[in-house]
């Protein structure tokens, strides 16, 4: 009887420990959301090709149609949005990205790198306040009122959406 109680105690302990480990590992393997590209609601653009988005974020295209200057908003190192954008849009590492903008400014092709905003909320506010602004936020942060661009004809959440 005493032996059975001892085994039961050990079993319970092992079970609890196992559950804790499983819950931790499942928390770490959550699916990642798409990256949504947002612009000011007054911006006439509804969709971009991925190539156009690459040109815009790399500073090769600096004006919207109508000669409105594009204002690039970006997230700081360590953020999820930046990680996705570096991989898919820039196709660069963090180091290459920094060197790219040093080089671009040196060549007088830009005056500054994209403005870094410290939260998705600030990105939304920036896009709302600046007519030519474009920003990337996690699709889970999308709220009513935002203008989300189609990329290659797709919106976040749809199959074949390229930014994830």
């Amino acid at each position: 009887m005493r032996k059975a109680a001892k085994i039961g105690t050990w079993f319970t302990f092992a079970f609890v420990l196992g559950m804790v480990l499983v819950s931790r590992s499942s928390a770490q393997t959550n699916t990642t959301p798409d990256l949504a590209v947002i612009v000011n609601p007054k911006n006439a653009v509804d969709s971009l090709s991925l190539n156009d988005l690459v040109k815009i974020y790399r500073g090769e295209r600096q004006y919207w149609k109508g000669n409105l200057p594009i204002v690039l908003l970006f997230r700081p190192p360590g953020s999820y949005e930046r990680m996705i954008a570096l991989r898919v849009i820039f196709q660069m590492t963090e180091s290459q990205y920094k060197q790219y903008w040093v080089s671009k400014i040196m060549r007088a092709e830009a005056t500054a790198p994209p403005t870094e905003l410290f939260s998705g909320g600030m990105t939304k506010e920036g896009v709302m306040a600046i007519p030519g602004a474009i920003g990337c936020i996690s699709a889970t942060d999308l709220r009513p009122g935002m203008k989300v661009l189609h990329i290659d004809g797709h919106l976040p959440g749809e199959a074949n959406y390229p930014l994830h």
Partner: protein
Amino acid sequence: MKTSRRISTVFILVAATAVARAQTTEPNQSDVVKALLMRIDKLEQRVAELEASKTTASAGAPAQHHEPQEAQIPSTEGRQSMAAQIHEHDEHPQGGAVAENHFPSLQIRGFGDVDFAATDERGSHSGFNMGQVVLHLASPLSKKVAYFGEVSFTAQPTAYAVDVERSIIRYDHNDYFKLSFGRYHTPINYWNTAFHHGLWLQTTISRPEMIRFGGRFQPVHFFGMLAEGNIPSGSLGLGYEVGLGNGRAGVISRAGDFGDVNNNRAWVARLFARPTGLQGFQFGGAIYRDKISPTPALPGDPTFGEWISSAQLVWAKETPEFISEFANVHHRNNLTGHISDSQAFYAQLAYRLPWQQKKWKPYSRFEYTHIPVTEPLFSLADFRVQDLVGPTVGVRYDITDFAAFKLEYRHTKRGPKDPEVNGVFVQTSFTF
């Protein structure tokens, strides 16, 4: 009693393991930043949810005056599309205020290098030398006007020489037309307009001979005005640069900053393509036209017509990096009608190695310059440009994101009667 002691022991072991693990995986600064950013995002999300629930509770029904529009919002589980009503947002000045540009907003970046050289050239001394200290200035003056400047400090035997390398004010109309005035690096050569005086930006220690600073083969600087922009061409990514300026000064290695030496303006036109599907790939060509009035004046005071044509092929990705350029310089002595063509080219290949955090980048370059002995200008003592056949091999090691070590071996052979020269060069270059 025995059981409880065992459980206590197990707990102590688990706790000790956890503490040890925590110590060994102490989060570095980027992890802390990452965690803080996630925390900010979660808090913002929570605030938005609370605001939304408060609005719903107080309003009871959606506002009538808001215009409906479709927007796709995935659920928190991700990937589920849904339609949502759009309504006018309140103005939130905080993010906008941070992101909005202020004019003027001057940004200064510095470049520097320290070098060591040792060659077997007769009469040369090995030793360290101070490279250039360069300050690059960029300042938007409005949404469409910007100033760019580049100032260098170069060590001389008795003092430092200060030079304005570039000083440009540019007016942007749109992506297709930008007009600027000032002093440029002549857009007749890729290297000249890609790396400027920032030696840290270029893979190698030295510039190619055909476009070296203080060289005469091609005009490094150009003073005047320049129109540039993209050409609507879809995925071909065409661009252009067209300039009109003073051209070479009487001392042909310099630009006519102080004023033109004759009444003929120089002009330059460059066309290039950066195909969208091939990031880092660029090819193009340029032509340059000038009338040279050399100083000191030559017997009979001749002027020289100059036509330069060039071509570039660049793959700027580092796995591999390939840069190759060719230029032909055509001179005509306007007094005698004597013409001559000189050629130069280089091809450089580098590869960023995948090991050791991609810090190593070996490279090699081959250069060639040919000046005919009858060249009417380059063969004269005060305007001499020498032949060159020279391979270079080296390696670059990036110490950090903003500093590099470079080690280079160069073998150069000038004229047929000149001795071959071997040299080892070391450089640390950086940006700050």
